């Protein structure tokens, strides 16, 4: 029995998407794609070192613990330290610190490496990420 006319195009379309879309995981930069929707399952390691500090007008430096803002600690941090997520996170963090009347400038460092390769900084040294273009995050 022949199926309705739309069934074969639907099957073909589904297959094309399922085969072609994950290929971008091999082409796009891991710093940008996170490996999402590509079936990259426990195939690589992604490590980051990050530091957030508030520098007040007198030059006093206070570290900022970002874990309470992420609420779930390190695994979420690993999800957050990506070029697309960081500007959004910095915007959120700046708003939270402003609400808490923290004052001063927020400075940040964040460098990540895939498979223990050369670490790449995701943040441009701006002095205050809350006032910097793209919240201090390096362009692609």
């Amino acid at each position, binding site marked *: *029995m*022949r*199926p309705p006319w739309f*069934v*074969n195009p639907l*099957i073909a379309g*589904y*297959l094309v998407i*399922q*085969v072609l879309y*994950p290929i971008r*995981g*091999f082409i796009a930069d891991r710093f940008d794609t*996170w*490996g*999402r*929707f*590509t*079936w*990259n*399952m*426990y*195939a*690589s*390691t992604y490590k980051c070192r990050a530091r957030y500090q508030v520098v007040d007008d007198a030059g006093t430096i206070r570290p900022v613990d970002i874990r*309470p*803002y*992420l*609420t*779930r600690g390190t695994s*979420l941090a690993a*999800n*957050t330290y990506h070029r*697309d*997520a960081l500007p*959004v*996170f910095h915007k*959120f*963090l700046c708003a939270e610190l402003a609400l808490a009347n923290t004052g001063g400038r927020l400075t940040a460092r964040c460098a990540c490496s895939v*498979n*223990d390769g050369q670490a790449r900084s995701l943040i441009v040294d701006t002095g205050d990420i809350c006032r910097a273009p793209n919240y201090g995050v390096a362009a692609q």
Partner: protein
Amino acid sequence: MTEAAATDPQGVTRWNRFWHASGHPLSFGIFRFLFGLSLLAEVETSRAKSLFAIEGGFHFPYLSLIKPAPDFFYHAMHNLQYPFAGLLALGIFPRLSAGTLLGLQGYLFFADRLNFRNHPYFFLLLLLLLTLSRHAGTSFSIPALWRRHRSQDGPIAPLTIQRMIQVQVSIVYVFAALHKMTAWYLGGNVLAEVIDPSLLKILHGAVSSGTLEAVRLAIENPRFWIAPAWITVLLELALPVALWIPRIRPAAMLFGIGFHLTIAFTMTIYVFSAAMISSYVLFLEPETLPRLVDRWRPRLFGTPPSRPLQGGANDPAKRSRKTRQKPSRSS
């Protein structure tokens, strides 16, 4: 030969024969049941992994118009999955149940990019396919049990959605293997990091503290994981081929089950492993399980089948078809 086969190009005929074959849906029903159980087990994992959405904090939606919802809303969406996963497992309103689960899980998954995990993404695809299936509840379900008392017709259904899930499982294996074909992974570095060290607890008391320390040092060393890393990649490359070949399928299934059980217990990834193992039943020929049921029913229950399962060994239609076909083969 049908009229369609005579006029269609050979490729189209093969395509139709593969995607639109019909058969006994028992394998599909068993898969639906096991997958439903997996979804029940996944609810709490999913809730735990998306707690940030419930607790508040940094929110990163795919679309800026998606705002964080109140706590009770998230909890309600997780809790609502229980009855529908149960209904799906039992094959009661399977399309409605799968569709509702697709909506609930889809919202929770796509409400925030921080929610991304491969496992729920895989489950979403399976739910989408089950939603499209008109025959998910035809066999191994409560409605099927009810129908057995009312109808003498054995179920035969198109295998299209079953085939799509088989292909989806194969795609997952292939891409998972391709991603791992790097010197870093094959050097054991990833496995040395992701293997759960709490596994060593099972050795406490069974071996001396010196041996325990030696084992701990060994599993932290990437060199220890070189062979397992190669085996992982080779299996992930071989399974999507071997599971399709009837002659080597039993061996492939055994290796695959062993592979996923190892993943489950060394990386504490239980639900995804269970779902992958469940999918193997779809790779069986449609008549395999009905034939086994026919064969084992008298031994288990002391009674012959009340009626022959269509597509099974006792199916008279099938026997008569075979008898009719024999002369034409020899001629």
